[in-house]
């Protein structure tokens, strides 16, 4: 390496050093430490004791609540397809609202900026079985509403309703994707006699598909970590029907003081997240190509 190269290297590293320190000190080292702890029994009061793969074995084969929480978490993934439809649908509506787009965008996004604790508290009340807003609206349609958060069958759908209410962030991202669809494609399709549905199916949808993919993967990661809402609203009840993986991880770490076990759970989560990230990077070539094509116009 030449002297000039070395000087540029030092200068570059100096500029990125805050991030580098954070990466090593707050991400790399803690992750390795927790990998070690995941093979230990550790209650934070006495020093960790190495126990081999015991935590992993307990997690996968002995602790029934882990599987309950995984089942509940997987069930929550059902909200992802719904959020794709609602996200694209609301974005299409906003995209058409030429004049009042600012106002409607605000109204659609306001729920999204609520802190999850506030949203959770509000929805405890919105989903109240006797006096709640959702059941009052269902009453208008003469549908008897369930007890939502008090009913093991309906608690998770209640959470999904709340999440879909906060769709605004995804709507904005879909809106940006829609606005990036070249107008001439729509015009060409229209000239070829394509109706609105055919134009949506063959022009709009392919153009926003990378966004759909990205939001589904990040959404899945979000569901895997689902925590604040259930911690505030139900604490995993009724009948453990809202005991999600993120909540059980937290409880193991900070309520049952099974630190090593919780670290093993965190590592399982990490491996799944790694897989999701890998998928995004593998397929990103496809959607980078879209953007490059657009830039070349």
């Amino acid at each position, binding site marked *: 390496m030449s002297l000039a190269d070395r000087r*540029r290297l030092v*200068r*570059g590293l*100096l*500029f*990125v050093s805050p*991030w*580098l320190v*954070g*990466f090593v*000190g*707050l*991400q790399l080292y803690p*992750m390795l*430490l*927790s990998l070690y702890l995941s093979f230990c029994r550790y209650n*934070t009061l006495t020093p960790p004791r190495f126990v081999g793969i015991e935590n992993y074995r307990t997690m996968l084969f002995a602790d029934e609540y882990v599987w309950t929480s995984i089942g509940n978490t997987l069930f929550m993934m059902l909200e992802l397809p719904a959020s794709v439809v609602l996200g694209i649908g609301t974005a299409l*509506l906003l995209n*058409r609202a030429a004049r009042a787009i600012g106002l409607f965008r605000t*109204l*659609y996004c*306001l*729920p999204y*900026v609520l*802190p999850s*604790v506030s949203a959770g*508290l*509000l*929805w*405890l*009340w*919105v989903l109240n079985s*006797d*006096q709640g*807003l959702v*059941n*009052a609206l269902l009453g208008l349609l003469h549908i008897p509403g369930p007890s939502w958060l008090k009913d093991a069958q309906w608690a998770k759908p209640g959470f999904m309703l709340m999440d879909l*209410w906060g769709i*605004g*962030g995804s709507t*904005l*991202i879909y809106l940006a994707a829609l606005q990036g669809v070249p107008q001439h494609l729509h015009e060409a399709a229209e000239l070829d006699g394509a109706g*609105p549905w055919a134009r949506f199916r063959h022009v709009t949808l392919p153009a926003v598909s990378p*966004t759909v993919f*990205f939001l589904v993967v990040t959404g899945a*990661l979000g569901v895997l970590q689902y925590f*604040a809402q259930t911690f*505030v609203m139900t604490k995993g009840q009724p009948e453990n029907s809202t005991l999600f993986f993120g909540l059980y*991880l937290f409880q193991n*770490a*900070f309520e049952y003081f099974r*630190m090593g076990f919780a*670290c093993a759970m*965190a*590592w399982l*989560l*990490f491996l799944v*997240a790694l897989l999701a990230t890998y998928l*995004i*990077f593998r397929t990103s070539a496809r959607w980078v190509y879209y953007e490059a094509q657009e830039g070349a116009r």
Partner: protein
Amino acid sequence: MSRSLARLAAGAALVLFAVLFILPLLWMVSTSLQPEGQVLSGTGNALTHLIPRRLAPVNYVKALQTLHFVPYLLNTLYVCVLVVAGTLASCTVVAYGFSRLRWPGRDTLFSIMLATIMLPPAVLLLPQFVVFRSLGWVGTYKPLIVPAFLGNAFFIFLLRQFFLGIPEELTDAARIEGASEPQILWHVIAPLAKPALVTVALLCFVWSWTDFMGPLVYLSDDRMYTLTVGLASFLDRHRADWSGLMAGTTLVTTPLAVLFLLGQRFFVRGIQMTGLKG
């Protein structure tokens, strides 16, 4: 003819969704203004109660006191302001290093940093807790604030994209005139990047304000609580007092809603950038 019908249907759907999104918020405010007994009275339902018959602003007085709103607000602002300051300072410098400087290994490190954006916070929470505990920082604001001074991968990415769009000629000219890199960053890049910096500041402020997991894990003394943790503990103490709870929720939510309304165009750009990472 069918075209105008379709437009009408789309317009109706647009309004319907707006009502559905906003109704829970209106109801929150309406509940917060009604006397405690009123909302749970047997007659009528949520829709008939939407317009309060009797106003009881006293809920707010009560919520202000039992929620400890003012002290918690000050705690929250203290954390948020320091987090925003730290994030802006560190991310600007790092983003400059990743965009305007050329050095061997830059792109490798940058892709490592991009990958860390995908790292779920829940995965890091526990390992970081162990580290902060060994530093003796649990029970202080340090675990919430210090990391901000070490950059945030997403904000670095956002600023880098913006810096790349600033013409090279400007920085080259400054270099020929003998300006050092920190001077160029401060006098040339930063003023031009103001919209991006505002976006980062606003998003960072909101994320720090809404953070629940961090304060929950690291703050043990309830006098140090931030608003989100304060609200959660308020709920645990007043489970059935819906008027009071909604008053508290409204108090915690309003500052954010106002901030969003004021800085909307920056927020929209920032949120849309989150869809561009990856």
